[in-house]
């Protein structure tokens, strides 16, 4: 059952005035504070925020790992606060976590990837088919008999993504899944999710504080102190350098450079988010 928003696009996730409070400290902490957000099918969203901003809590609300204390989280038309919907939501919205080592359950890669569909009660023949297909989609079919704990960080996260894919989700949330990886691993994971989004139309929600990763998204949502502060295309969001830095975040070096040159009155518009754009802009000015 497809639910549409006003623009007529299919809604994957709808968060309506959600709040979530952590109660296990000296004082309660409102991690998510009156947040409303719509995520459309096929979008690649980056959720950006400093540590403690509430971005991970928001991620967990989106796949019903937690339910809001007030407000609603609706996933593919289903309310996450209704117990009978949780299973369906978790099947449709997969989650990849930060620590590659904490997500391994199998002794071989293919066993690890088969775990999800097995738990869903899928037929054995179908399980194997799905696992192989998932590995193939990620491009790691040749790793299938390898021991997952001996793989590199990037490879482990790719196995985790394959494991989620085997459950045929419509959406994948990555909660800081590249934080513990080296640059090669980070590139591998980003390339994987970018392809899944472009080729399979997978809705991707990428939680991060790395600006260069956020630049790959269709839309960037910046959170701080449990609230959405600004959202828009990467270019729109990062051109407000002062705001981004006041939120404890950084902009890409080239963005910073152009912004500084703009402050000196040497360029009129500093909205660049990558090297290609910066080169283009500067060449046009230098002549």
């Amino acid at each position, binding site marked *: 059952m497809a639910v549409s928003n006003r623009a007529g696009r299919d809604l994957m996730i709808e968060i309506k005035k959600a709040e979530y409070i952590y109660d296990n400290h000296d004082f309660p902490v409102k991690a998510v504070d009156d947040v409303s957000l719509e995520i459309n099918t096929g979008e690649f969203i980056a959720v950006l925020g400093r*540590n403690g901003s509430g971005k991970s809590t928001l991620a967990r609300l989106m796949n019903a790992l937690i339910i809001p204390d007030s407000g609603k989280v609706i996933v593919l038309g289903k309310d996450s606060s209704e117990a009978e919907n949780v299973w369906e939501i978790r099947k449709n919205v997969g989650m990849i976590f930060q620590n590659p080592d904490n997500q391994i359950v199998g002794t071989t890669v293919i066993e690890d990837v088969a775990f999800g569909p097995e738990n869903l009660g899928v037929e054995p023949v179908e399980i194997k088919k799905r696992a192989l297909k998932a590995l193939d989609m990620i491009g790691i079919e040749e790793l299938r008999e390898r021991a997952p704990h001996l793989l590199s960080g990037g490879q482990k996260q790719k196995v985790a993504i394959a494991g989620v894919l085997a459950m045929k989700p419509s959406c994948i949330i990555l909660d800081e899944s590249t934080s513990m990886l080296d640059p*090669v691993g980070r590139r591998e994971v980003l390339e994987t999710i970018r392809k899944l989004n472009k080729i399979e139309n997978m809705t991707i929600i990428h939680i991060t504080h790395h600006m260069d990763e956020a630049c790959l998204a269709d839309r960037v949502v910046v959170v701080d102190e449990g609230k959405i502060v600004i959202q828009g295309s990467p270019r729109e969001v990062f051109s407000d350098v002062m705001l981004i830095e006041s939120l404890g975040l950084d902009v890409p*070096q080239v963005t910073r450079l152009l912004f500084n040159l703009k402050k000196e009155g040497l360029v009129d518009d500093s909205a660049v988010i990558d*090297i290609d754009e*910066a080169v283009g802009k500067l060449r046009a000015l230098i002549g």
Partner: protein
Amino acid sequence: MKGTPFEKKALDNVSMELKKGEFAALIGHTGSGKSTLVQHLNGLLKQDEGQLNVAGLETKGRDLKELRKKVGIVFQYPEHQLFEETVYKDIEFGLLKQNIPDEERRKRILDTAAIMEISESMLHKSPYEISGGQKRRAAIAGILVLEPEILVLDEPAAGLDPSGTRELFDIVTSLYREKKITVILVSHSMELVGDYASRIIVMNKGRIEHDGTPSEVFGMGNKLEEIGLGVPQITKLMARLNEYYPEIARDVYTIEDAQRIIGGILRRGR
């Protein structure tokens, strides 16, 4: 694991000298030997061949206690090693093991807490009650309190957000300037390396590929990418611009320098 089927040369004919008071960076692809090299510095690992002299001490046959006093290594995610009831006690642990007397211990802990921006109240909290960034500072304090002459930081900003990273490096920089500690930074972040190190040692497959200034190393461009490394984004930009404007230097690695050079060109054109 010498002599076994799993034998792999992690370090291969590595020679280098580090001067007192230098801020050096050690970079290299995963598996290049950086961690192995670093673990030799305080005797955690012993070399199969060759000599290692650290802060005037030959490491072979050496009593590790003295070596460990000179070299402090902060491993990745140091907060995973916090275990005491309070932050104060956790920082105190190493001092107790070195039999430092009561008054001296207290003084050192309070001084180090001040440097690491750990408040009085935080000192009395359990390590489990504080935030990730605070835990990290507490863990580093536990090593700094031993007053090492050489401080090795292995990916100190891993998992920290940009402002947390900046705060940490501001502290490291003042430490370096005021106490004249020799710092070795192991990092994958070329931007961080470019901003702080005055010398970069590049490792590749257990060997030292290059050892020089940031200008020299980041000027290597494609060669770095071939061995699994990158350059700061600003360096890539300058290299691209250099293709069209040869007068633009390729070995630029800070935003400030890039701004100065490009600003100069834009002004001349007006």
